[in-house]
């Protein structure tokens, strides 16, 4: 089964890096959607089927924390796995994000092995 993945990050470079890392990791991908902020991500999630979301924390308009909180209140979106990909690796931030409803937290720069492991962990039964 190939997955639809959404990458939300205000940096085109970061979005491209995650997309290429998914490819290098051999993750079966049907479609990679990209969003420059949480609002764009939320709009896209209401139009397209997405299996997993990779999200940065610091983004303009709507940040990663706000995006996750919105998603967790919406029936169609609340069960989609959300993985934070951030430079911020403080234990407090990680705890805050997990409390908001994210499944896992990766620190930039991510590796193909980390990415593959996360996808397998959260999508194997999808």
């Amino acid at each position: 089964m190939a997955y639809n993945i959404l990458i939300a990050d205000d940096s085109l470079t970061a979005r491209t890096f995650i997309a290429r890392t998914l490819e290098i990791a051999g993750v079966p991908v049907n479609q990679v959607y990209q969003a420059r902020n949480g609002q764009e991500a939320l709009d896209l999630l209401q139009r397209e089927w997405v299996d997993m979301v990779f999200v940065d924390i610091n983004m303009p308009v709507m940040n990663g924390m706000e995006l996750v909180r919105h998603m967790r209140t919406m029936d169609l979106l609340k069960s989609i796995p959300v993985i934070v990909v951030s430079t911020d690796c403080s234990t407090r931030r990680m705890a805050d994000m997990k409390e908001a409803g994210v499944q896992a937290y990766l620190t930039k720069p991510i590796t193909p092995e980390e990415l593959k492991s996360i996808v397998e962990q959260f999508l194997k039964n999808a």
Partner: protein
Amino acid sequence: MSADNINTLVQVTIQVLERFAFLLGDPPESGDHPPAFPSPSWIVTIAFTGARAGAIGMVVPPSLAAQAAANLHGMEPSQASEEQAVDAVKELLNIVCGNYLHEIEGNKPLFDLSSPAQQTVAWERAAQYVQGKTQATLVVEGSPLLLFIEK
């Protein structure tokens, strides 16, 4: 900021360059002068607040930024647009800053990072800007890269 911190910044940058942008960098060999910076060059900075406030930055030749963007996007450096090159060095510095703060402060303190800023300046102006700041130079794929700590 101590010499330890600039050494940490150098080591973190070398690791991030390799893992994120597929670029190999090292301090210049003892006694060797690093390559000269072209003019104009780019100054890229990022500030942080929280358990400690400060900023770090780099002076980077546009050609090296284009090489980083090309590696990240899977294209030739000549195909990388200036927008892609600027975004690449900003994201690179963002990652360096997060990893640097983790190395010097551990993972308990909370930091907020600013959006990285980039300016194109004559090399003489860049040299003037970093004068007096704690700094170190790397040689990355034959190009110079200057790292500095604001405070």
